[in-house]
């Protein structure tokens, strides 16, 4: 007789074998496992005991007793023969509370992989694990508390109800291999452990149907999605049905709309609906009373799914709006339209400022200020397949790309939004005035204004030059507005600035401080600025109070 301990090693199931021992007829032997435990990579969460004996099947029975090292908790488990007619599936009650744990141990006793059907039931909800597979001789411990608390939806979207304390767990092997299962319910406060290992059916369940997951989904042109096959197995001895993800083969029945790889990756090609077909072969079993075994018969099943392939566009109206606090309108309507009409698509909007636009060159605009706001910024397409939002500009001029994202595909609107004060033009160079105040590489164009402002500035400088009382060095014209208007910082990145206007082209700064001229000259210049037939300005603010740096308003 050989006793083998199978345990989870770093590279998969591992084994440790005790020296062979002899068990004489009608004798009982108590075999301590202390010696082999010393050679194991402790601590181990669990392990399984496998006993091979040379006698006839059923000629030996055994039991394993596990004793808690630091306490007096003992778990007794009976041993069963491989290929025992009832081994292969089980149904057990579980319980979870502060003192109670429920752990399902599954052991693949074969030399082949074993797919496992798993159903944890609570409150009438069935929760399936659909990818559970045991390697040869692997023992897997499934902590039902973890399954409950993970709250991961299964293929039907079900979850074990939060806080469920009682239910049943049903499992089965989906391949014709021996699998042992046992549910251990540990109740430490009572120092009790219950071990359940009842069995249900003899043969593995039959493969009877094939589904595609997802069964129907909308994807975008050029978007890809992975379809998977879900095989359904049915027990012989009851009505239990088990879903399990399988490696089906796929084919598109509408390649112009969507192509699909054999492995199931579908890619949208054009608008429309595509039917996706899947094939898969597995077994049904017939119990042979002569051979006392389940005989496999292969069956191919077919499943179908659909995918609606669509495109979407992003449009804005109007395409030019004013920076906030620099005229109106400050808002534009953003419309995302799917084609063909595809409702219930989640849309997310964003704006991206186009660099070096609006007169801000290489400008460290504060990130938090650059983007406008969408109301709402996300939502779902309506029954007409469209989604609308209102975009409000920030106070900066410049170009913005409006982007919409559906299913991780982002589309940029064909028209770039211009946040711009309209009607601004650049003050041309003139011999009687000087252009000052540019910041190279940052604000190189600071001379944009309305036609009234520009005409007034030109006429004022020329009139000054033609007046003996005013003429002298050129009139130094500083900031007017940026090419597209909007907030204008006086220094690089300084937005909390005294220079918070100059947004709509009707403010100009004139640095007439000494040594530009004396008070008489400034008086004449101001009169020309305020002359309706010359400058035409309406108001003058002496910003520095003492230095004659004028902020002129038209």
């Amino acid at each position: 007789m050989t006793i083998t301990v199978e345990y989870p090693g770093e590279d998969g199931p591992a084994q440790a074998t005790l020296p062979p021992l002899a068990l004489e007829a009608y004798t009982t032997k108590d075999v301590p496992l202390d010696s082999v435990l010393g050679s194991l990579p402790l601590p181990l969460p669990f392990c399984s005991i496998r006993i091979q004996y040379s006698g006839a099947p059923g000629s030996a029975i055994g039991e394993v007793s596990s004793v808690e090292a630091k306490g007096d908790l003992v778990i007794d488990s009976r041993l069963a023969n491989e290929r025992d007619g009832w081994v292969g599936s089980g149904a057990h009650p579980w319980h979870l509370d502060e003192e109670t744990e429920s752990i399902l141990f599954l052991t693949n006793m074969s030399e082949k992989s074993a797919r496992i059907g798993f159903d944890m039931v609570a409150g009438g909800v069935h929760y399936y694990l659909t990818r559970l597979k045991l390697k040869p001789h692997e023992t897997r411990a499934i902590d039902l508390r973890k399954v409950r608390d993970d709250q991961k939806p299964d293929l039907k979207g079900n979850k074990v109800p939060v806080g469920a304390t009682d239910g049943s767990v049903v499992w089965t092997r989906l391949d014709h291999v021996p699998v042992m299962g046992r549910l251990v319910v540990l109740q430490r406060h009572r120092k009790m452990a219950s071990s359940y290992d009842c069995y249900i059916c003899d043969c593995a369940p039959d493969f009877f149907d094939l589904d595609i997951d997802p069964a129907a989904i909308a994807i975008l042109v050029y978007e890809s999605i992975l379809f998977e096959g879900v095989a359904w197995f049915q027990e012989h001895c009851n009505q239990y049905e088990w879903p399990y993800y399988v490696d089906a083969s796929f084919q598109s029945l509408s390649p112009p709309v969507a192509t699909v790889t054999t492995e199931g990756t579908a890619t949208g090609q054009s608008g429309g609906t595509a039917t996706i077909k899947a094939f898969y072969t597995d077994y049904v079993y017939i119990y042979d009373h002569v051979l006392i075994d389940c005989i496999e018969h292969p069956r191919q099943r077919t499943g179908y799914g659909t995918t609606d392939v669509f495109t979407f566009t992003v449009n804005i109206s109007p395409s030019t709006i004013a920076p906030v606090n620099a005229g109106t309108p400050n808002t534009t309507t953003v419309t995302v339209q799917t084609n063909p009409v595809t409702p219930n698509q989640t849309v997310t909007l964003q704006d991206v400022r186009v660099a070096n636009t609006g007169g801000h060159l290489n400008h460290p605009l504060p990130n938090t200020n650059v983007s406008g706001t969408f109301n709402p910024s996300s939502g779902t397409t309506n029954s007409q397949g469209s989604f609308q939002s209102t975009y409000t500009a920030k106070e900066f001029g410049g170009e913005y790309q409006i982007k919409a994202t559906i299913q991780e595909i982002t589309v940029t609107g064909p028209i770039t939004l211009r946040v711009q004060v309209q009607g601004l033009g650049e003050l041309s160079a003139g011999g009687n005035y000087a252009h000052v105040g540019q910041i190279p590489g940052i604000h190189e164009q600071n001379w944009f204004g309305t036609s009234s402002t520009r005409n007034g500035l030109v006429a004022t400088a020329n009139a000054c030059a033609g007046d003996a009382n005013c003429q002298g060095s050129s009139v130094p014209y500083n900031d007017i507005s940026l090419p597209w208007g909007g907030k204008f910082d006086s220094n690089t990145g300084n937005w909390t600035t005294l220079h918070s206007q100059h947004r709509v082209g009707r403010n100009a700064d004139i640095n007439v401080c000494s040594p530009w001229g004396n008070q008489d000259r400034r008086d004449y210049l101001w009169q020309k600025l305020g002359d309706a037939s010359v400058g035409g300005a309406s108001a003058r603010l002496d910003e520095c109070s003492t230095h004659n740096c004028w902020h002129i308003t038209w």
Partner: protein
Amino acid sequence: MRLRATAAICLLEIALWPGPGADLGARERQPLQKKNIQIGQPAPYAPELEGREEKGNPVYWDPKPHVVPLGNGKYALKWIGHSGRELTLLYQRPDVVDVIVEADAVLGPQNQLRYKYLVRNLRTSKQNLGGFEVRTFTTAVKPQSSPSFYATDPAHIRQDIDPIRDGLWIRFAPLGSRTQIRPGQSVVFELTSPARLGILECRVHADTLTMMGVGEEPPSVLEDLYLGRDAWPQGYTIGPDERLAKMSLAARLKYLVERLPQMLQLGWIENQKVMQWYGTNLKAGKVA
């Protein structure tokens, strides 16, 4: 020949009997009219995102602009600056002067008309006179400037002005602090032009339109409250108008008849009866 503004019909170069009972100097002229445009509270100003705190919470600048009337045409324009302090800019309305304009035109050598404008800043004014402007319709006009007074140079005007189509405003204004026209004082401005005499607009404004900075520029909605020239006291006087030379006799008569009610209102014509007499004769073509 000396022409008075109240005898503006002389522009027709005709001899027109003033009619019975006419006493052209008996009626007091009316001060220039004010529209009394109200300065209310500014339009809402959208708070501006200036940055974020370390925790990521947005920081907005909300200047809360508002206006506090101070009386006598002065206003405190208030807002919260970027520093968090409340800032105040003092603003003076341009229409706090009461002004009467009287004008004479004298034909001089080479058919040049010499216009004299007596601008009286009445005692009821709350501010010095800041400037006087008369609208002309000619390119041939020569205002008289002086070391104390600024006058528009018609040779250097804005490109977007067509003096015949839009009119050319000639500005006269005291220069700096050297010359002040206080309430109760008067000043005479002169210009010459060969153009015919027409009935034209004039306007004035109070002094002290320069505002002193407070370290930050006011939000634009406060700048929007500044009153423009349409708020200045305005009325009618005589001045050069080239357009009249191109009119037929009938058109000139029509021009006069249409302005008779205006002349009565301004005090250029003594009463209704005299106005009717002029109207009847002009319509009948009794101009010679």
